[in-house]
């Protein structure tokens, strides 16, 4: 404990990182440890609970020795994850969300783990396992029963493939590490800002803010220290391109960050890595060390006096909201990932309220490429308002899920053809917070002019119930709402209840009207993008697939949500009765 705290310099802004280490060591955060931690860091005890309870992967109560979390994205479900979780619960004799009586194991669902091209996936004590089958689940149950240490499990279980199906200027680049930085160094930081601005590069995280403009604003912002932050909290369900970039192009990511540091005058950078990608931490640290050894990081980089810059990696711990840049900064500071009030924006008041440039993994790669190619050549790729290429994470009903790189302007139809999708009913572009497009819109183009995207491309064929797709997304938002503002905290839960009511066959026209009212409230008054987009899945599927909702409705205008027979379930369980006589007949 003391070693842990002293290694982090007794710095309370590292609280989240310390808690993650405590969790990894003890399997949870024991109260006695929390008390000692509070004393050593000189923070109130409640702060530990305040922070730890925000993150899904941190636990204040003992969990199983083996903590099994099934990825619960719709693509995992489409590959049979629900049946696999049920199978595992049966094999190990427990209910989802509970710890087994011997403390051996706990099983539950978790938000998308970014393995949609090789699902169903799970996390066991934070380690990713892909390609689950009934066979594999049986083997895992046996390993758990035998208390086999995770390090002795078959290596094949943990294999994560890149599945690159189509390359382009980014994925096919042959740049040597340090090459772009070498070339850009003599002309200095202002030149970088100018080139990036002229290249027309826009952020690849979804919002599409012009990168050069952001860097310029950060460069010009007054502050004691400037910071560069790489957003690798790739939490949008259906997105996994940053995982592949961090695996194959880590040097290019760090090169882009270093260029940014030169451009904005930063001496310190962070890469915020989502907890689900914990297995990438050591390889990424090794890349950072190699770059330090090559004088691409550290003091007087490449011999340029005064150009000092280094990068730390911070881990997330299961909170989608931390992908929002100001929430990410709060989390970097060791706090709950609650989005800040804006203005002020991170470019002027970011990490430690200092000027901070926050960009997506892919954006940093593209920035390095744009520097290498020159603004004009880069701008010639893609479309007028969306220059360059975009990595698309394709999953769902198609023959070849994986990563596809296209110049902006590619149509939905072209991608569907390339990935071998047939009888496609709909595509969810850019994840649950994005847009659901139906067949009549497959000629639309990816790009900021038409369909902006962070990269997710989930394909649904005509066997899928689009209502269930929307319901999965609504559950996701309710689970991931940070709870700061009333409309999102309560609204996403009510929305979830209403969709569950419809799924249970108790829905009416009144409920659809309520959904539309909730949409309005969430859109107009939510604190951040999560709440404002939480209704999109429902709105878009209602627009295209209204019958998928209506055929589940009772014809009544109103039906109470209270389900008398359902409420008696617990009593039936306690009395051990589940015969017909123990059920109430539903009255119509």
């Amino acid at each position, binding site marked *: 404990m003391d070693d842990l705290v002293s290694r982090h310099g007794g710095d309370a802004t590292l609280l989240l990182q310390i808690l993650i280490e405590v969790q990894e060591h003890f399997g949870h955060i024991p109260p006695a440890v929390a008390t000692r931690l509070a004393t050593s860091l000189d923070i109130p005890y409640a*702060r530990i609970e305040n922070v730890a309870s925000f993150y899904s992967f941190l636990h204040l109560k003992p969990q199983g020795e083996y903590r099994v979390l099934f990825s619960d994205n719709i693509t995992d479900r489409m590959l049979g994850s629900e049946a696999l979780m049920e199978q595992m619960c049966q094999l190990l004799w427990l209910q989802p969300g509970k710890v087994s009586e011997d403390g051996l194991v706990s099983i539950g669902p978790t938000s998308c783990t970014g393995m949609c091209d090789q699902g169903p996936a799970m996390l066991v004590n934070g380690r990713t396992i892909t390609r689950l089958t009934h066979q594999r689940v049986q083997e895992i149950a046996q390993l758990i029963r035998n208390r086999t240490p995770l390090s002795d499990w078959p290596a094949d279980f943990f294999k994560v493939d890149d599945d690159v199906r189509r390359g382009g200027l980014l994925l096919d680049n042959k740049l040597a590490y340090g090459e772009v930085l070498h070339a850009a160094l003599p002309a200095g930081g202002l030149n970088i800002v100018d080139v990036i601005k002229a290249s027309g590069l826009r952020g690849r995280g979804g919002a599409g803010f012009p990168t050069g403009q952001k860097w310029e604003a950060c460069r010009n912002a007054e502050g004691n220290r400037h910071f560069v932050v790489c957003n690798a909290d790739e939490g949008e369900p259906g997105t996994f391109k940053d995982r592949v970039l961090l695996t194959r192009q880590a040097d290019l990511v760090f090169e882009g960050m270093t260029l940014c540091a030169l451009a904005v005058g930063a001496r310190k950078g962070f890469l915020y890595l989502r907890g689900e990608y914990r297995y990438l931490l050591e390889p990424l640290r090794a890349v950072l060390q190699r770059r330090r050894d090559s004088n691409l990081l550290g003091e007087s980089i490449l011999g340029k006096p005064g150009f000092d810059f280094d990068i730390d990696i911070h881990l997330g711990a299961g909170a989608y909201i931390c992908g929002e840049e100001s929430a990410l900064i709060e989390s970097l500071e060791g706090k709950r990932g609650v989005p800040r009030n804006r203005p002020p924006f991170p470019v002027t008041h970011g990490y430690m309220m200092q000027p901070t440039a926050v960009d997506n993994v892919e954006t940093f790669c593209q920035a390095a490429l744009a520097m290498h190619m020159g603004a004009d050549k880069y701008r010639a790729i893609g479309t007028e308002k969306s220059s360059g290429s975009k990595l698309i994470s394709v999953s769902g009903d198609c023959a070849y899920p994986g990563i596809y790189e296209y110049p902006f302007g590619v149509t939905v139809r072209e991608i569907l053809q390339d990935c071998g999708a047939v009888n496609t009913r709909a595509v969810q572009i850019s994840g649950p917070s994005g847009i659901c497009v139906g067949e009549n819109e497959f000629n639309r183009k990816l790009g900021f002019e038409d369909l902006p995207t962070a990269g997710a491309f989930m394909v649904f064929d005509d066997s899928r119930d689009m209502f269930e797709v929307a319901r999965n997304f609504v559950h996701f938002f309710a689970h991931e709402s940070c709870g700061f503002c009333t409309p999102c905290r*309560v609204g996403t839960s009510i929305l979830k209840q209403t969709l569950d009511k419809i799924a249970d066959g108790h829905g009416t026209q009144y409920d659809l009207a309520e959904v539309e009212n909730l949409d309005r409230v969430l859109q107009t008054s939510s604190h951040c993008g999560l709440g404002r987009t939480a209704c999109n899945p429902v709105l878009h599927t209602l627009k295209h697939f209204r019958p998928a909702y209506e055929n589940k409705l009772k014809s009544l205008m109103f039906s109470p949500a209270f389900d008398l027979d359902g409420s008696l379930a617990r009593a039936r369980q306690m009395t051990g009765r589940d015969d017909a006589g123990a059920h109430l007949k539903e009255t119509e």
Partner: protein
Amino acid sequence: MSDTFQLDGAAVPFEPGQTVMQAALAAGHYIPHLCYHPEFKPHGSCKLCTVKVNGRTTASCTMPAEAGLSVESDIEELNALRRTLVQMLFAEGNHFCPSCEKSGNCVLQALGYDLEVHATGFRHLYPDRPIDASHPDILLDFNRCVLCELCVRASSEVDGKNVFALAGRGITKHLIVNSESGLLKDTDIALTDKAMEVCPVGVILRKRVGFSQPIGERRYDKSPISTQALQDAPRIPSGAKHD
């Protein structure tokens, strides 16, 4: 002359650094609010004070005032939104006004009356929130918590104690106290703390003073919250001048 912005057609003067809410209240214009309190830093979570600024919705308590802004507040679209938000807060907690010690002094209840919330609207969530009666002089009834964080802010900013904090995420977010046992008796709270005075609803209560003031003679029984809030608000600050 000082700069002004437009609020529902009236010119509102402001000082640099003031938010739309602060300037509006100081100038005698009421914007409904719950988590905002004139003595603390605005934090913008309840969203009841949502207004339209140049056509875009935003929380007025955190929106910096700027010259020439066009702000709409008292319009049916926004009042309907506020009614829904109040309904959400009622549905989220366990609120039983007739038996609540805070009835008549409660901001949530007063907002309900003032905004004319006539029905519950949503199915109640009935969360399980045990009360904390461990302290000899103070009772915590978490059932009524609306997560405004005023006690958190008061304890930290004014009392320098951090007795209260929030825990959990999303709909499971809840108020906690600063002790390993999780009980109020093991904290350093005192009856004289600022945190004792700020709860807008009936979470933080002194023991043995129940119903000492009869219902019907309480704060919001006398005048609606829209009037009371203006009486409590700091008046036009001394620096501001009118032309």
